[in-house]
């Protein structure tokens, strides 16, 4: 368990927040410059905040009131950076083992287990310069884990990778989230990643916490992202219940089925699914003869308009709250208003694979 309270001033920017993070992935989400990286750098001991405290489990990392400020190397905080930061003069195996000699008597993951889990067996003798971006990041994950951290920090670990490499790395973070018994602080500005990985989301804006909760709660709030943003989209939780032969998988939440492109994974698996707000169509009557497989009945909870042509409509359904991004004009023509019954329409093929995890 991470328990943290920070106050820090850098020029005109001020950071003032406190939160706790349990095991699983706690995503620090927000625009660049919001202060996310400052938070994890403070936990890692790479910067010293003006005031506050940082505790991991029973260990005080920082508490000026009691004169505690552990040096970075004493904090047992594993750090996965955006640019891997492998040591160029060492082989992959030497990089992986780097933190092992400093970890003392702590119980640690087995070297071969980590190598196997991350698929690094064939790379051990290589130098970092000979690795692809995705391979480098896998080595960086292994290196951090083998130092036996009590908390794991990840700063936009996928941001420097192309889409295919992101898909290669995402499953490893899912495994860390599900299998590791330590808190993971994961900084990201990509809603897709956060929706898929996060156990909890902390939305940070200008150094303050804007919202804190499960992704399904935070992302279904139409105020969580600007109405003009194409990145708006609610997250719903569902269970994988069937793989159909025509290439469609079926998810269920309560008794409502949702059809999405074919997924991998065992039936019964719990999933977080992000539904991009701009892919959702609203209708005031149940549409007939329509190709979209998902027509979901609901009630408008709220409407938020920004400066642009779009409004964000929050619709309460049996699946949970869904966000739809429609034009101000459509909202006006259809007479959309709070409490109005509507149908949210979602094409199966408009659900992106990377939004499900």
């Amino acid at each position, binding site marked *: 368990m991470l328990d943290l309270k920070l106050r820090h001033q850098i020029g005109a920017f001020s950071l003032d927040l406190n939160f706790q993070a349990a095991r699983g992935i706690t995503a620090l989400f927000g625009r660049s410059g919001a202060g996310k990286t400052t938070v994890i750098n403070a936990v890692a001991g790479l910067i010293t905040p003006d005031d506050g405290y940082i505790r991991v489990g029973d260990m005080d990392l920082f508490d000026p009131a009691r004169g505690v400020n552990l040096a*970075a190397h004493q904090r047992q905080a*594993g750090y996965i*950076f955006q*640019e891997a*930061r492998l040591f160029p*003069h060492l082989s992959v195996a030497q990089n992986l083992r780097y933190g092992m000699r400093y970890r003392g008597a702590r119980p640690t993951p087995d070297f071969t287990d980590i190598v196997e889990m991350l698929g690094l067996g064939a790379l051990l003798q290589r*130098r970092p310069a000979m690795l692809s971006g995705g391979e480098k990041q896998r080595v960086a994950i292994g290196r951090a884990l083998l130092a036996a951290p009590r908390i794991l920090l990840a700063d936009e670990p996928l941001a420097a990778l192309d889409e295919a490499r992101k898909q290669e790395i995402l499953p490893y973070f899912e495994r860390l989230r599900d299998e590791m018994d330590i808190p993971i602080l994961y900084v990201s500005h990509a809603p897709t990643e956060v929706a898929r990985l996060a156990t909890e989301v902390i939305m940070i804006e200008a150094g303050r916490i804007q919202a804190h909760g499960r992704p399904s709660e935070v992302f279904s709030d139409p105020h969580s992202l600007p109405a003009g943003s194409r990145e708006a989209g609610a997250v719903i939780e569902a269970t994988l219940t069937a793989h159909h032969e025509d290439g469609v998988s079926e998810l269920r939440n309560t008794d409502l089925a949702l059809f999405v492109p074919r997924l991998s994974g065992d039936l019964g698996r719990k999933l977080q699914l992000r539904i991009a707000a701009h892919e959702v169509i609203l209708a005031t009557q149940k549409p007939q003869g329509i190709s979209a497989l998902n027509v979901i009945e609901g009630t408008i909870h709220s409407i938020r308009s920004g400066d642009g042509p779009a409004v964000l409509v929050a619709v309460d359904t049996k699946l949970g709250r869904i966000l739809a991004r429609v034009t101000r004009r459509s909202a006006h023509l259809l007479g959309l208003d709070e409490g109005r019954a509507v149908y949210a329409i979602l094409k199966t093929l408009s659900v992106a694979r990377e939004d499900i995890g």
Partner: protein
Amino acid sequence: MSDLLGPAEWAAIALSLKVSFWATLASLPLALLVAYLLARCNFFGKQILNAAVHLPLILPPVVTGYVLLLAFGAQAPVGQALAAFDLGFAFHWTGAALAAAVMAFPLMVRAMRLSLEAVDPKLEDAARSLGAPPWAVFATLTLPLSLPGVLAGAILGFAKAMGEFGATITFVSNIPNQTRTIPSAIYTFLQQPDGEQGALILVAVSIFIAILALVLSEILARALSNRIGGRDA
């Protein structure tokens, strides 16, 4: 070749190599420390240290030699104190080594500082996050990554020490077998009516040693930068 080199020439060559070797070796750790302080640390008086280190590069060598004479000469308090322990520099080959070390120091520090600054501090942060204490970060990361520059600095310092003349002759004079290094020997030969041949031979030897040092440093630098650049050998 051995016919060409008389005992006086051999003595000068051997003495030059000895003086330069010890001058380089003894000042290497200090140069590395100063380079690290200048490259990585912020402290009061940093600019003063920087200026002091560079002073011998700018001052006329004769001035540096005279300052050394005032500080460590046989009449100076420090020199007398050291002489009591049989550690005097005055008119002794160690004095030539001291003069060479002082003159080579700024060049060594400059080369080392540049290569230390080229090591990405972000890699050092990564090492600290893996539990490496500061000395280990330096030993396992900063030093190996900057080794080509450190060695280049050492070779540069050695070459400078081989060529040192002004400060040496001012500080410890020109005594055969003690302080008559190659440059002093060439100077001596040129003062003699029949000394031209001896001077020419030593000039050739100087050129040979200089080229050897350059080639050696080039080979070292290339091998190391390959290793550090992460290309498989």
